């Protein structure tokens, strides 16, 4: 038992490895894939996030001007954040807290005016992505 005794004495002499949660909650590190947030001012409702999602937890509807996210089905993989063409999606550094009610996030995203390109063939971005959808 000599091997273990030394380890135990060393552990007794040093500070505990556990954290007194919830008095000192764990702060996730930089780059943690936490809660998903969408900026309605930037989102163009193209639907790329919906197509990439492996767990089908996003619903984007241009007609209803809405963007829905089901956090209980999300696997927090971060694919949607990577494919978003306008970078309106991002992941917070904290995870979703425990909820009392089933949480479903629905955002009203107003339709943006099509951006005018400076080139001659000004096909607006909104129309192009509508054709893709």
């Amino acid at each position, binding site marked *: *038992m*000599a*091997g*273990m005794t*030394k*380890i*135990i004495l*060393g*552990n007794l002499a040093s500070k505990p*490895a556990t954290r007194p949660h919830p008095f000192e909650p764990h702060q*996730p*590190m*930089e*780059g*943690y*894939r936490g809660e998903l947030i969408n900026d309605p001012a930037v989102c163009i409702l193209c639907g790329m996030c919906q197509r*990439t*999602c*492996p*767990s089908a937890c996003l619903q984007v509807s241009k007609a209803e001007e809405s963007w829905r996210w089901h956090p209980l089905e999300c*696997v*927090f*993989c*971060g*694919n949607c954040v*990577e494919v978003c063409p306008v970078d309106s999606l991002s992941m917070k550094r904290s995870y979703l807290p425990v909820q009392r009610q089933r949480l479903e996030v629905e955002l009203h995203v107003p339709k943006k005016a099509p951006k005018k390109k400076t080139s001659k063939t000004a096909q607006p971005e909104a129309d192009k992505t509508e054709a893709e959808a």
Partner: protein
Amino acid sequence: MAGTVIPFGPQHPVLPEPLQLKLVVKDEIVEEAVPQMGYVHRGLEALVKVKDFKQMTQVVERICGICSSIHGLTYCLALEELMGVQPPPRADYLRVAWSELHRVHSHLLWLGLFADALGFESLFMQYWRIREKVMDIMEATAGNRVIISVNVIGGTRRDIDEAQRKWVLGLLDEMEREVKATERALLHDYAVKRRTVGKGVLTREQAYDLGAAGPTLRGSGVAQDMRQLGFCAYKEVGFEPVVEHDGDSWARAKVRYRETLQSIELVRRALAGLPAGETMVKAKGKPPAGELVVRSEQPRGELLYYVKTDGSKNLERLRVRTPTFANVPPLVVMLPGLELADVPVVVLSIDPCVSCTER
């Protein structure tokens, strides 16, 4: 047949995985063992019809939580070869680093469970305490603790910058010291040796004929490890398989202990030799029609992926053969002749991972 049938599992305090073994026992000696599976079958292979080949990366990572990154890596290697995409060298080294970190955390988890199965709770807690450092490294470098999701077709999504690299190397030194300090308690303890030496013996011929994989095979003296194939950056980093010759539970524990230390060293070498450059190459289009077999090495053994594509964005067939699937027949051969009280430790010594086995 005369004898009592004792169902061991799927729920049992000492069994970490939902595998049922019907043990036919006579006077405390096990005569026969019949495995029964199916408690966590999720039908993930059938999801290829529904999810396209890029979404399948996430599905495949969730076959197992402990070795998830290596499932994703093998899948990405298969599709990269089919699509003719060559990931950049920096991605290869980073993939080696993350895979070996997974191996470290999986082996530390197993060493803890092994101690727990023997009743040695303090050592169990000590190994998991060391393992927390690896989880912190995963969280900081890849964004999540368990299912890190860094492998994509074409490379890796994340990068390790200079400051993180130094921090990781510092933590690796601490971990190596702490793991080495446990050697005496784990491998040279009188009670541990009495319970594991000579139990669950698998001879070299039996291990080879029954198709054992991983430490189960290497603990019986066969020096075979899929990392010798040299995928990713294993050739550059340099690698030799770890072999023991006794074939009993103690030999398998020793193989895993030595592999933990070897993997820490491999992570150091991979991070030291990181070439500069991009980490990802964009993979465009769909995979062409064809089929492919790719193999890699999980902590538990040899992993085989058979991928068949037909040119559309859904794969036609994905077949995953996980190492525990290969290790269950040797288990069925190992158990007869043992005393009933030795069964949990021997079952644990093959490192079962039933969520991998049943997908």
